[in-house]
């Protein structure tokens, strides 16, 4: 596929764990169509999965009446994935994960999601709006 113009795909994902895989598979399919390498598609799959899990668990509190909106926005040079939930956004005081501290039982073994998203994507932004809720915005560029 050559996305000469901006193409937008919207998915409304139930706030139930495991359904994040639907968004992961959709993002991977689009990235492959756009010509991303297998390595970058793998990066994207992990990041989208983590963003959706955060939205399901923390943003929407696994409330089955609320959906996670995943927007896939493709153009010639990049793929942007916006994951929207109805939570209060990412807390500012979140502890940076430290493997040594975790092995020493000084930190919870969990808490790697944001780290993985930030490590694997080219651009990441966390935003929150009182009317629309939280959004994790991730971008990967085709030529990097």
């Amino acid at each position, binding site marked *: 596929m050559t996305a000469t113009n901006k193409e937008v795909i919207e998915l409304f994902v139930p706030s139930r*764990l*495991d*359904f994040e*895989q639907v968004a992961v598979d959709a993002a991977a399919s689009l990235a492959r169509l756009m010509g991303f390498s297998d*390595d970058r598609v*793998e*990066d994207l*799959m*992990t990041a989208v*999965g*983590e963003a959706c*899990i955060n939205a399901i668990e923390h943003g929407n509190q696994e409330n089955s009446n609320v959906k996670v909106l995943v927007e896939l926005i493709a153009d010639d040079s990049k793929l942007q994935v916006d994951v929207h939930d109805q939570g209060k956004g990412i807390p500012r005081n979140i502890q940076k*994960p430290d*493997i*040594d501290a*975790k*092995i020493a*039982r000084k930190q*919870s*073994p*969990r*808490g*790697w*999601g944001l*780290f*993985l998203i930030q*490590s*694997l994507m080219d651009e990441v932004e966390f935003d929150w709006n009182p009317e629309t809720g939280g959004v994790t915005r991730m971008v990967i560029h085709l030529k990097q």
Partner: protein
Amino acid sequence: MHRECKINVHEDNDLATIEVLGDLTASAEKAIGTAYQKACGYNAKNILLKFDGKSRINSAGIAIVINMVIESQEKGCKVFIAGVSKHFRKIFELVGLTKYTTIVDSEEEVRKL
């Protein structure tokens, strides 16, 4: 959704092997925990977590491995990882788990160490 996780455990000559067929995510936590306790029961010096080459891991899966490493260290066991994809290995390197586990190509490689 995720590939269902099927797990087998066996022991041979001080190496307890936990074979994981599927993805290492939160839904595998209970099964992995049970398998790990069975592996510990062999009192082996080394534990090998052997994947099928297609397994994916997420943040919850990383936490499962961290818990395994903590318990193994307390028991004086070393944790080895085999059968991982290039991306799986990248995730292990990013989070720093390669500092506490050894990634090998095969079960045989652990026996030679």
